[in-house]
């Protein structure tokens, strides 16, 4: 199936623009744009090279290694992989229900991860564009400039992230690549002292997260017309949902709705994900395109992540975030909100929810409990699913009777959002590039919309405004007509 602007009729006659971050965190992404002599856009593609070597590498390894090993997959959300794998391995060791202590400690770790990742995403990666403008001076598009112009905002962003990392450190043993979750439970609890240390700051975190929701909202609604239209497209959505319809980022069944908000499936046991989701291969991309089997490739693509989740849930089970959700959905007038830039607003609502959940868990004596591991009847196959910061994350393993992994399959949120991000990039190219001479600020519009979904595709160093970027415009013979580049120091240059 091909979509508008996905494939040009006569690509050999067009010039090509490539946006390629040179260094990156997870996977490997670039955008190619084909233009004619009048700079009309004919084809736009976001190519993501997924790191699939892992699924081979883990074959033969003992299953209990998986939750620790998989953390190497992503520099931004290693904890999500850790927990998704641990949930799959729980199934292998027959741990149908974790002990209350283990379950709550896992949740604490996960919401710590949501908090730190959402803070990083919004404050470090997105806020410069949102505060200074998409085509602002490139030298200003970084957190350092935010700190100079809005010191209080930058400070809160940094401290929110740090707090989330502390939650992770105390539950997993380390800020990155810890070992907390083990088959059937956890290897440590939180001592009274550790809880007291976090409780000291948590109320600030809740208050600042609420301020962040208001900031994200303000930035969105102050130019509602542009922001709601920016890269706009409609699609189905998917995410985990608690049995009672509440937002739950750690566990639940799969819920999917169509673009109008009508249910496609609901409360599906995720161990049967293969029955509802299929993956399409396209010749031009290394990354697969998942779709809902029932809807087919044309209609069945979907988006995941904060926007999908906040749209999809019936309520958020913490009061402050729930109040913000009401405010948010009111802008949809009864329909799901699809604007990519609304991702940031939804993301901050989730961050507030995460802070509230952490606060409640810190007051819960179960997290200091000592009954941490449970096991039951062994199984040879297990699926674990979690709502990672950027969306639904699937881990699926099979083992043999020797405890060695024979098969691993992962669907990461970037893959689920593959089609949606392509669509968003095409819309922005149509809205902002079509007919214009390509400049760095214009190309930043493309990055802005990618960043609404996924910070991993833009490079982590972009947090400092130093994303090395090369844009080449080639003529039909492949000769360079023009070149705009940003080097590692953030300096911009021009010329063929």
């Amino acid at each position, binding site marked *: 199936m091909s979509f508008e602007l996905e494939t040009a009729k006569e690509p050999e006659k067009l010039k090509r623009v490539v946006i390629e971050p040179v260094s990156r965190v997870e996977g490997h992404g670039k955008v190619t744009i084909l233009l004619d002599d009048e700079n009309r856009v004919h084809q736009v593609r976001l190519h993501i090279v997924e790191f699939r070597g892992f699924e081979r590498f883990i074959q033969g390894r003992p299953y209990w290694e998986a*939750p620790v*090993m998989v953390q190497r997959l992503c520099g931004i959300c290693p904890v999500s992989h850790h927990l998704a794998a641990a949930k799959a391995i729980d199934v292998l060791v027959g741990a149908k229900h974790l002990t209350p202590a283990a379950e709550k400690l896992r949740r604490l770790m996960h919401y710590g991860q949501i908090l730190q990742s959402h803070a990083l995403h919004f404050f470090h990666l997105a806020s410069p564009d949102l505060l200074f403008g998409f085509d602002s001076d490139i030298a200003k598009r970084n957190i350092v400039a935010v700190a100079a112009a809005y010191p209080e905002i930058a400070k809160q962003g940094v401290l929110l992230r740090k707090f989330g990392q502390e939650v992770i450190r105390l539950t997993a043993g380390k800020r990155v*690549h810890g070992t907390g979750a083990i088959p059937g439970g956890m*290897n440590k609890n939180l001592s009274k002292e550790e809880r007291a240390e976090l409780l000291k700051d948590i109320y600030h975190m809740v208050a600042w997260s609420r301020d962040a929701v208001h900031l994200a909202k303000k930035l969105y609604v102050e130019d509602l017309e542009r922001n709601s239209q920016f890269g706009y497209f409609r699609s189905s959505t998917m995410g985990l949902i608690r049995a009672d319809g509440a937002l739950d980022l750690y566990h639940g069944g799969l819920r999917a709705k169509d673009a109008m908000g009508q249910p496609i499936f609901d409360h599906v046991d995720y161990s049967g994900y293969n029955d509802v989701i299929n993956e399409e291969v396209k010749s031009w991309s290394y990354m697969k395109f998942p779709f809902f089997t029932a809807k087919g490739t044309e209609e069945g693509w979907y988006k995941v992540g904060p926007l999908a989740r906040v749209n999809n849930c019936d309520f958020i089970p913490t009061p402050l975030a729930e109040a913000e959700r009401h405010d948010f959905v009111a802008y949809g007038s009864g329909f799901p909100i699809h604007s990519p830039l609304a991702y940031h607003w939804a993301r901050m609502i989730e961050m507030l929810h995460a802070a509230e959940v952490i606060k409640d868990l810190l007051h819960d004596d179960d997290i200091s409990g000592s009954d941490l591991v449970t096991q039951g009847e062994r199984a040879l196959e297990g699926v674990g699913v979690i709502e990672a910061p950027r969306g639904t994350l699937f881990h699926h393993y099979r083992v043999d009777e*020797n405890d060695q992994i024979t098969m691993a399959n992962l669907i990461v949120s970037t893959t689920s959002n593959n089609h949606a991000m392509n669509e968003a990039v095409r819309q922005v190219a149509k809205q902002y590039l079509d007919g214009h001479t390509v400049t760095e600020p214009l190309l930043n519009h493309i990055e802005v919309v990618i960043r609404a979904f996924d910070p991993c595709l833009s490079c982590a160093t972009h947090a400092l405004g130093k994303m090395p970027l090369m844009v080449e415009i080639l003529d039909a013979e492949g000769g360079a007509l023009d070149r705009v580049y940003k080097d590692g120091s953030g300096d911009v240059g021009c010329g063929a």
Partner: protein
Amino acid sequence: MSDNTINIDGQTVPFLPGQTIMEAAMAAEVYIPHLCHNPEFTPHGSCKLCTVSVNGRSAAACTMPAAAGQQILNNTEELNANRRALVQMLFVEGNHFCPFCEKSGNCQLQALGYYLGMMDPHYNHFYPARAVDGSHPDVLLDLNRCIMCELCVRASRDVDGKNVFGLTGRGIHTHITVNSPSGRLGDTNLAVSDKAAEVCPVGAIIKKRHGFAVPIGERLYDHKTIREVQTEAHK
């Protein structure tokens, strides 16, 4: 000076007749880095990490008998640099991925790397292809992490009386084998309670399904260097 003393880095260390330099040093709480040496077993002298200078000549402290008046250099920059290089070579010869190895924090190779100030592997990785043997119900054999210290061979032969492990091949092709017709651990009479199942200083022989149970911060080398751990063990 008494007849039964040696001198290590300027310190007078007494010894009993028949003791090796390593034994005398450890008894006096003088740490000599070592890997294939384990006080419970007959010395083996293969890893060369314990190499010291005895009266100006190199010798393995774990096999060299102490003799009156020996002038020994141990904790010198040069000797430690050589030791660091040996550890680096061990790292690149196998597949040692500390970040997701369950022995991390309890591993002597890793602890020695830290103790000797190893910041990187320095040499090119061999990335050998070695299969994991999970056929035993309770013990996993992962030769990716084997450093050929032969402690398992010695433990199985000398303590367990079973000869489950052996050594075969030459030079760089030397490797540990399992003495069963299939070559699989599951076809031996190894028991999880055997000495051979617990003696491995690295993560090559591990008890199944216990990985990562000890949280970071409570592992053997989380707060102490291998020098502190091994000298305290001798007290």
